[in-house]
């Protein structure tokens, strides 16, 4: 297996309601930014994370469409789907492709154009990531599933409503320093708690938004990166892990525990030969405030049940022991589902390059990403290290 590096990153200038831009345009825009950042003149293959082109814009057969519009020539282009973990998984497939020696320059992208359909259709499209016949049939929504996780977590561990809100407050504070974000504003605990209730106890300010956006990164063999792509510090992908769990929340023994996150994290640590304490900065899948708390526990940053307390004590702030979601997370950045996992890689790459400006974590050498599908039915993690 060859060592692999990230040599280029790109996303849209800003995520959000991109009314003027089509599905294919937002992807090509992000991909061109990554290509320009890497200064490459060809792509051997590409993997694109997209959860539901079919339901959001009526488009499937995405790999070919986007390769055509990106002008790559007739390369192998593969659409990857694992609900909201589609982007992270596309990155992993690209990593495997390069590591295996099959391809040299590979683009891993993610794209979702979510705002072309109305709210009910969006809720429906997202709900297809849950068990259609045994969850969605009964009228559950994604906020509803995470609200049930939150209630179980609060009941079992005494996690408080305020701690949930603090996740949003922290991520919006980080996000206010990230102009690409859909909602780069700060908020406070009362505003989060008193905003519109979506699924008790989660308010709209506990939820990540609906977003149009795309992101792309370029991977190549580490040796090639060291030899040819010297404009940026070389960022190596030292660990990759992927795990699944039942997509039905009710099939899990412990409703507060994200096993797929734990397992994908463990596999990643093992491959990277690192421990949670070695991680300098981490982007986790905060689709809802409770998700960040559960993910940080499952990744081993905190004991089970201690994630809420960690947020309260600023352990996960940029200046904290383990900064979480310095980008602003899905919460502030926006959550174009297929693109999210790629944007996490982008944030960590920037952090390790030292390019994060006001959000920069001091001396960040090793960074991690965790991207999750559904209510935890799939999870993909990566660890990157600056070389």
């Amino acid at each position, binding site marked *: 297996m060859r060592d692999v590096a990230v040599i280029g990153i790109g996303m849209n200038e800003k995520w959000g309601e991109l009314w003027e831009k089509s599905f294919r345009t937002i992807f090509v825009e992000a991909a061109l930014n990554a290509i320009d950042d890497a200064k490459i003149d060809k792509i051997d293959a590409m993997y694109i994370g997209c959860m539901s082109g079919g339901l959001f814009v009526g488009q499937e057969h995405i790999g070919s469409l986007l390769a055509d519009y990106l002008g790559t020539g007739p390369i192998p282009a593969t659409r990857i789907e694992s609900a909201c973990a589609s982007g992270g998984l596309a990155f992993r497939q690209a990593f495997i492709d390069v590591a295996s020696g099959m391809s040299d320059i590979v683009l891993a992208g993610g794209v979702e154009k979510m705002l072309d359909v109305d709210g009910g259709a969006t809720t429906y499209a997202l709900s297809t990531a849950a068990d259609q016949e045994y969850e969605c*049939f009964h009228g559950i929504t994604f906020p509803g599933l995470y609200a049930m996780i939150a209630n179980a977590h609060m009941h079992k561990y005494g996690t408080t409503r305020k701690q949930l809100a603090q996740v949003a407050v922290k991520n919006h504070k980080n996000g206010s320093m990230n102009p690409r974000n859909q909602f780069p504003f700060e908020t406070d605990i009362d505003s989060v708690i008193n905003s519109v209730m979506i699924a008790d106890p989660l308010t709209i300010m506990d939820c990540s938004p609906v977003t149009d956006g795309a992101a792309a990164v370029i991977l190549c063999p580490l040796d090639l990166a060291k030899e040819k792509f010297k404009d940026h510090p070389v960022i190596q992908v030292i660990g990759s892990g992927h795990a699944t769990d039942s997509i039905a929340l009710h099939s899990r023994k412990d409703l507060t525990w994200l096993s797929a996150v734990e397992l994908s994290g463990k596999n990643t640590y093992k491959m990277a030969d690192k421990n949670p304490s070695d991680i300098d900065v981490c982007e986790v899948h905060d689709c809802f405030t409770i998700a960040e708390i559960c993910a940080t526990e499952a990744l081993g940053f905190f004991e089970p049940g201690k994630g809420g307390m960690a947020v309260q004590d600023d352990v996960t702030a940029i200046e904290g022991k383990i900064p979480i979601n310095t980008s602003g997370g899905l919460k502030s950045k926006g959550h174009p589902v297929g693109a999210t996992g790629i944007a996490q890689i982008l944030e960590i790459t920037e952090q390790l390059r030292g390019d994060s400006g006001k959000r920069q974590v001091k001396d960040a050498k090793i960074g991690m990403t965790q991207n999750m599908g559904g209510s935890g039915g799939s999870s993909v993690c990566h660890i990157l290290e600056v070389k």
Partner: protein
Amino acid sequence: MGITARNWREYPQRYRMEAAKCNKCGKIFFPPRLVCNECGNREFEQVKLAGEGKLKTFTVIRVAPSNFIDEQPYAVGIVELTDGVSTLMQITDCDPDELSIGMRVKIEFRKVQTEGDAGILMYGYKAVPLRE
């Protein structure tokens, strides 16, 4: 419409809560499966799930998918039936304030969804708080 056959296929589970019990390790699957994820066995006995249980967790949906908008707000929970099987369902005939984790519920047959004004009626199980 595609929904008709899809719904009809699930009648044994939606109407009667029929499950499959692994002949080897005894794990009960709802809905039934072809292979046991505990022991790999492929032979099952048909069993009917218990009609009572307790709430493991719940929420109140205030922003519903298109097909449930007229029902909002409504409660959804994960019920652990007395036979140990947990499954998700609506909690009906209740006020959100009276719900709590651990609360005892029983299963009732209710209308879960309708396919618009002219399509099929979809029935199934819901939980009702036990008030005795």
